[in-house]
């Protein structure tokens, strides 16, 4: 007899706007407070204190335009946020400060979240959609120098890049980018050489979100249709479809794999969060709490596995936080 799905451990209210992006920062040693960063449609970034379940700080740096991506850069003191005001802002949050130290004007009017990769101490690569329709630009942070621009070949008709993921096999190896495009294909780019290594049509509709497990060389992508597509990368750096999984309702906004690579979570347009086992994509749970589209899901980076959490932000302005499969 299967147990009914669990209820959220707690629910964060107070954003007064749809929540588009979430990021945990709980890895710091005690007495650091575990934090959750959320970006909302009203342009605010809220810093939630996960002990008191209240907002510690609200950051306003995007001119009241929707914030659709927040990430930390090596700890909770440095934050990167991306908004619909076509800017990427770098924040300094140490010692109670709330100032924007730098910003990048992307001229990108879409919704493609940028992707960060730490390549060396204090040096990051950031992939972002550029001004030109089909291009992805790689910048080095904090110097903001352009590393390369990834242009699909003429006539490829990929459409806008919808989601990006920069990764490298291990420190020191070549960084590679996985990009999902509007026409439903996922392209593997070699960043240093600036050319595409492999392309795979995963969906008939735009790829909404993707995530990749570099250890198993397997990735998953979700789209506006009913199918989740799992693909793998073989030795020749070629993408192949591994498996597809059909969902009950169409539309996935976000997919994320837990850092221990055991489970993954999807945020659905049907207001539900689904949990799958990563190994064989076994459906594990359907979390039905929200009353509108779930925009984002994020796993926490707690060092103690038992404290791990899953957070989901939705259009109904709530952030639900769950503790699920934390014991394994």
């Amino acid at each position, binding site marked *: 007899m299967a147990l009914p799905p669990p209820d959220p451990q707690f629910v964060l209210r107070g954003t007064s706007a749809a929540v588009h992006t979430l990021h945990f920062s709980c890895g710091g040693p005690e007495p650091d407070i575990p934090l959750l960063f959320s970006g909302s449609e009203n342009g605010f970034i809220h810093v939630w204190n996960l002990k008191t379940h209240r907002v510690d700080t609200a950051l306003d740096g995007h001119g009241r335009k929707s914030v659709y991506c927040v990430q930390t850069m090596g700890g909770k003191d440095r934050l990167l946020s991306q908004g619909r005001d076509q800017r990427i802002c770098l924040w300094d949050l140490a010692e109670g400060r709330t100032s924007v130290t730098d910003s990048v004007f992307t001229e990108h009017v879409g919704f493609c979240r940028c992707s960060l990769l730490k390549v060396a101490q204090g040096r990051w690569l950031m992939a972002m959609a550029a001004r030109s329709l089909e291009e992805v630009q790689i910048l080095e942070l904090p110097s903001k120098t352009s590393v390369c621009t990834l242009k699909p070949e003429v006539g490829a008709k990929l459409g806008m890049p919808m989601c990006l993921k920069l990764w490298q096999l291990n420190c020191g190896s070549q960084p590679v980018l996985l990009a999902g495009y509007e026409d439903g294909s996922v392209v593997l780019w070699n960043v240093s050489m600036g050319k595409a290594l492999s392309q795979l049509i995963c969906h008939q509709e735009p790829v909404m979100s993707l995530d990749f497990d570099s250890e198993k060389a397997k990735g998953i992508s979700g789209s506006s249709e009913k199918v989740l597509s799992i693909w793998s990368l073989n030795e020749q750096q070629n993408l192949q479809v591994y498996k597809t999984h059909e969902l009950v309702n169409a539309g996935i906004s976000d997919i994320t794999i837990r850092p221990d690579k055991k489970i993954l979570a999807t945020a659905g347009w049907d207001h539900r969060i689904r949990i799958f086992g990563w190994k064989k994509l076994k459906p594990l749970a*359907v979390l039905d709490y929200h009353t509108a589209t779930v925009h984002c899901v994020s796993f926490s980076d707690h060092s103690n596995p038992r404290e791990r959490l899953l957070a989901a932000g939705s259009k109904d302005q709530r952030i639900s936080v769950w503790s699920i499969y934390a014991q394994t």
Partner: protein
Amino acid sequence: VCFIPGGLDCSISFVSHVLGKVCVHGRQKEILGVLVPCLTDVTKSDCIWQRICWRLVECVPDRWMEAVVLGFVQRAPGADVLSRLLGNLVVKNKKAQFVVTQKMLLLQYGHTTAVLQNLLGYLSLESLRHTLLLRVLQELLETWSSSSAVKHSPVEQQLYISKAILICLSHLKEPEIESYRQELLTSMMEGVKCHLDSSLPQLRRLGMVVAESISLKINTEGPVLKFEYEEDNETRELKSLLVQTPPFCVVPSLPDDDRSEEAGAALPLVPESNEKPHTAAAVTPDEESDAELDSDDDLVPYDMSEDKELKIKAPVYIRDCIEVLAGSRSEDVDKWEATVKALESLVRKNPAATREVSVELAKILLHLEEKTCIEGFVELRQRAQVAVLTTDPIPVAKYLTSQFYSLNYSLRQRMDILDVLVLAAQELSCPKFRGKTKHSGAQKPCIQLLPGSDSSKDWRRVVDERIKSKTRRFDMGQSRVELASCPNEFNSVAGHFFFPLIQHFDRPLTTFDLLGEDHLVLGRLVHTLAVLMYLAVNTVAVTAMGKALLEFVWALRFHTDSYVRQGLLSCISSLLLSVPTERILADMTEELLETQSWLGDVMEKDPDGDCRRLALQNLLLMENLKKKLEAVPS
């Protein structure tokens, strides 16, 4: 009749005279039935025989030439044979030319397509005659594009002319098309305009097919004109005329060119197939090596039985529906869709609640536009409107009929009003049977739910069925009493549906002039009135309606649009069927007599075949009425 070829110089004029006289006396079939096959055979390869044949027909006196030529054209098995038999007769003989190029094409229209093919093929086969073909085409196009011809000539004639045009087009050569292109284009534009203006769907389709064909001919590269219409046997036949099957004798390879040109134009641009470097090769997941099997097993799934398809709930109260539909919040399209789908059943289940807000709901529905792409949106809206109208007939009918004559509605909306009124009237006037629903031999008029120009056919069919079953109808009246009877709901509201519609038809508004340009709507209005009249049988108001309708018909009886005239005749039929006989004779005798003479006129002289048929049926009905009266002992 056999000829012995000799080396003799013989005069065949005697034979020509005989031939001519026989043909003109109407014996073409007999003599040509023997002569033509005989001549076909002998002229196949023998030039002398060909010349003899030509001499034969040339010598026929003028006064008999027409009969002979007509007979030959009708009887020849193909254009090439005709060419062998007649030679250049049309060029040499004025009478023959007149018959072939004018009389058979423009003045007569009873010949079959095969005859047309023969005739026009014959004209095209030789260069001397080819100029005649061009002239013929010019004249045909003139007729086709003249608006008075489209309005006043019978449909059969127009079909004939269209066929002739298409066959001519198929025989045209490239250089001729080049030189003639501008005129073709002009005629096409004018002709298409007149045809699309017509109220009869068949004429519209004819115009579209011919225009498409002309456009195909003159624009071999680049976009061609393409209309949207339903294909049926007639259109397919017409289109097949454009492509000539090449006869086996020497003929310019024009037909082949035609076909390859068309094929070339029709080849779709091969879309740039997104040649991906590596297409998706689905690698079936082999069973993972055992080492990996275990770790997933300790993740126990939760109960997922609640995970079903997401359904948007439609509102449950009528007032909520009104809010959703009329509201300006355009975000919640899912809810809007669900509301539209659920509205009809909600209205029917909550008549009391509907009655409170009926006029408002009717207003919203009349102006409701499609916000998202729902299947069958038009039908859903119409059914909801009918439901509202039947639930609260009088105020909603008042509203709808007043809106029919108001400013600033589109023609589509006005015709929707008419459709809704008819459907609701039908629903109200049909008794709702409880238990057995068997009608003994009764033919329920099945007006289809979908609006469209074909409703007119249904209504006509309705009236026709009625006329056919009219004797049975009186039987049905009695058997109706045996079944469970219930009050005729249409009785109390028939007048409210009918009289407002008939009131203002002669008052033009700035955007709506029934007697002027909007004759399509007038036609629909007249048909609507006919149906309402028919459905008003057994109501109290039927006599008053009959009188008003008769006056209305009388005022419009000479309308130029044949669709309107058909409607008027249907009105008369409905009237004769619905108004009780005694009342007809008591109140409407003089008008009926006048109507009778008008009907006689229509039956003889109206160019439209359907009008004539309807007039005849009306006269029969009147005859039957009279007979019945005489049968009743006074």
